């Protein structure tokens, strides 16, 4: 009788519990609100990547991956609420997709022992793994981006920017202000004149800024914009007949949605790029077969091949590789967030891995270690062809100026460590 009862109880427990553990990848999405046009392809790409991994590969190490979406509307308070409400579900790695949310989550993820990946955004000095144990921003960050943009224009000017004028047009937020310090240092080093012009959220009205740009006639305009600010800026630049090839946005100002509203006038506009563009990669054959044709695409499946969709495919790929690394390090399939952190800290991305994933030459090869959570700081430049309605990479990977960027990272992370009484690790 006792045995029967025990068997019954066990059966009931097993029936009520999940059939198989899954690996949870939270995604703090913004499919609504003023930045939805960028948030939708980002969310679709991440979700579709893991759907593909589940359908084609049977999951990660045999365990299904589950993308846990929580809508933030790009609002910092909602982002923190999302974090609190999802962290208990075994969240392996957070992708906050907002610099504001990132800043709020840094102490939380550290205390909760959950890693966070902020590729190409967030707190730049998180590159210093000695201070930021749970935050990763590989393979490139904002300060690298500022330096890469300067290096690109240095290449165009035979290595000298002496006497040149550069305007930084930036979103008046934590995100937009990130490159200012680096550009100030670079302006001292290379002798160019820097003017920083803020644009208030959301950026629908920029007449004052573009009148000033027209008066000052800078040689180049760099842009750290997001959302409607990008579209309006590109339109205004074309209105004042600013040469588009001298207008360079960060990677968050270089999607199709940013240039299409300006039509042909956006032709020649440039932006930095974290990865390659378009649908010309084998992974898209698999996505079509296992995800789109199978009716399992996130959203309407109309975002495939866009810059932002590719970005989150890349994010999915990097999270996938880190999870595999964590499984390898710890010898278990069912990894915890702490194990995932170890996987991220030992991550090595090779061309062979990218080819295997159907993403040949998609991004740079790089490795992460305890001291360096930010990777190599490599980025490319892409240019918009308005006739073909497509982006093309026009440079090889460009390295940032580590002599300028690294001391800034050490200074900022050192100040954060002192303020928060954090003992340095990796000794």
């Amino acid at each position, binding site marked *: 009788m006792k045995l029967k009862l025990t068997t019954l109880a066990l059966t009931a427990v097993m029936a009520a519990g999940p059939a198989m553990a899954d690996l949870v990848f939270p995604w703090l999405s913004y499919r609504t609100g*003023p930045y939805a046009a960028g948030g939708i392809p980002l969310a679709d790409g991440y979700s579709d990547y893991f759907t593909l991994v589940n359908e084609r590969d049977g999951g990660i190490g045999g365990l299904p991956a589950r993308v846990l979406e929580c809508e933030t509307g790009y609002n910092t308070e909602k982002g923190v609420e999302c974090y609190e409400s999802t962290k208990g579900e075994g969240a392996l790695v957070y992708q906050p997709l907002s610099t504001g949310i990132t800043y709020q989550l840094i102490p939380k993820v550290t205390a909760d022992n959950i890693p966070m990946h902020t590729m190409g955004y967030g707190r730049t000095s998180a590159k210093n793994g000695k201070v930021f144990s749970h935050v990763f921003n590989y393979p490139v960050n904002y300060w690298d981006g500022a330096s890469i943009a300067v290096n690109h224009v240095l290449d165009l000017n035979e290595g000298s920017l002496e006497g040149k004028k550069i305007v930084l047009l930036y979103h008046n937020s934590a995100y937009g202000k990130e490159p200012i310090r680096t550009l100030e240092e670079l302006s001292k080093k290379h002798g160019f004149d820097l003017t920083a*012009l*803020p644009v208030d959220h959301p950026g*629908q009205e920029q007449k004052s800024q573009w009148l000033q740009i*027209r008066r000052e006639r800078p040689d180049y305009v760099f842009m750290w914009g997001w959302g*409607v600010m990008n579209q309006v800026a590109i339109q205004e630049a074309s*209105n004042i007949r600013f040469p588009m090839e001298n207008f360079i946005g960060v990677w968050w100002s270089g999607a199709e949605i940013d240039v299409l509203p300006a039509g042909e006038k956006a032709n020649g506009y440039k932006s930095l790029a974290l990865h390659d563009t378009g649908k010309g990669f084998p992974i898209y054959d698999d996505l079509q077969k296992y995800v789109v044709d199978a009716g399992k695409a996130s959203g309407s499946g109309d975002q495939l091949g866009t810059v932002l969709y590719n970005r989150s495919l890349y994010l999915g790929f990097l999270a996938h590789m880190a999870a595999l690394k964590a499984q390898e390090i710890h010898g278990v399939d069912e990894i915890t967030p702490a194990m995932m952190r170890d996987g991220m800290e030992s991550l090595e991305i090779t061309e062979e891995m990218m080819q295997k994933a159907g993403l040949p030459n998609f991004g740079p090869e790089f490795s992460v270690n305890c001291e360096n959570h930010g990777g190599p700081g490599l980025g490319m430049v892409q240019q918009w062809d308005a006739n073909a309605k497509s982006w093309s990479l026009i440079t090889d990977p460009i390295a940032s100026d580590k002599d300028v960027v690294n001391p800034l990272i050490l200074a900022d992370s050192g100040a954060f460590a002192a303020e928060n009484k954090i003992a340095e690790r990796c000794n």
Partner: protein
Amino acid sequence: MSEQWIFALEVTLNGLMAGVLYALVALGFVLIYKASGIFNYAQGVMALFAAMTLVGIMQGQVPFSHVINALFGTHVTHFGWSVHGFLAILLTVVVMIGLAWLVQVLVMRHLVGQEPIILFMATIGLAYFLEGVADLMWGSEIKTLDVGLPQGINLWIDETTLNWFGYGFFIDNLDIVATCIAALLVGGLVLFAQYTKQGRAMRAVADDHQAALSVGISLNFIWVLVWSVAGFVALVAGIVWGTKSGVQFSLSLIALKALPVLMLGGFTSIPGAIVGGLIIGVGEKLFEFAIGPLVGGATENWFAYVLALLFLVFRPQGLFGEKIIERV
């Protein structure tokens, strides 16, 4: 004339043009407030909804296609035709009239006699509901709107000012067109209010609901009419702003630019919306030009409200608002 004065003149002209764009949005608020005492929080979203509907019709987009596809497993997105801009505008006006009728029948009619704050809250609900419906109906992606409005620098002004001052002024063709549209719109509204039976009835309701009812004016009809006219104004604002930036969610936030205009010009005056818009436009642009560089820039958003508050201190009803006299 010194270089700085020339630049200031250019900024002033651009401020006037920007002010007209703000006034276009503010007009919709004024119309509804004047006729019904409702501060319509949804006016910005109405501009977004109207512009999205216009683009959707022009491009032959199937409304609610995401919902249809999800429910029936279909893959429909477009009808396969496109509609001429002018016809699409007419059809959008019909949609906005339908929306006005629905708002009246489903929401406002049930709230007659309620406190203004209740009506205001209802419009907040309406704003969020409309935002969601617009997304469901037409999708969240950024849409390009091209109804043939010219954009870019006006070369004649550029050349003329270059000859006069040695510096060519930048004035956007779209801003010039928007100014003409705003003038036509205001003129049309004034003629409508003064010389048509419905317009006079609208003014009667605006003056005194009870008295208007006592002479046989249908409050329901007038409110549908007012919301329809406000919907048309929202469409015009949506076209102009949507041409500038593409049609996207942020269009609904242009209402934020109209608030200081209303505070300054008064909630009940059409000329007030225009004059308020011009003062705010010029004020914020000149402040940004003169003081912005000294304080790090990005002063326009907050300075517009400071300017409006300054006016409020001395004239609480706004420049052209009706003076509120309550006798006890």
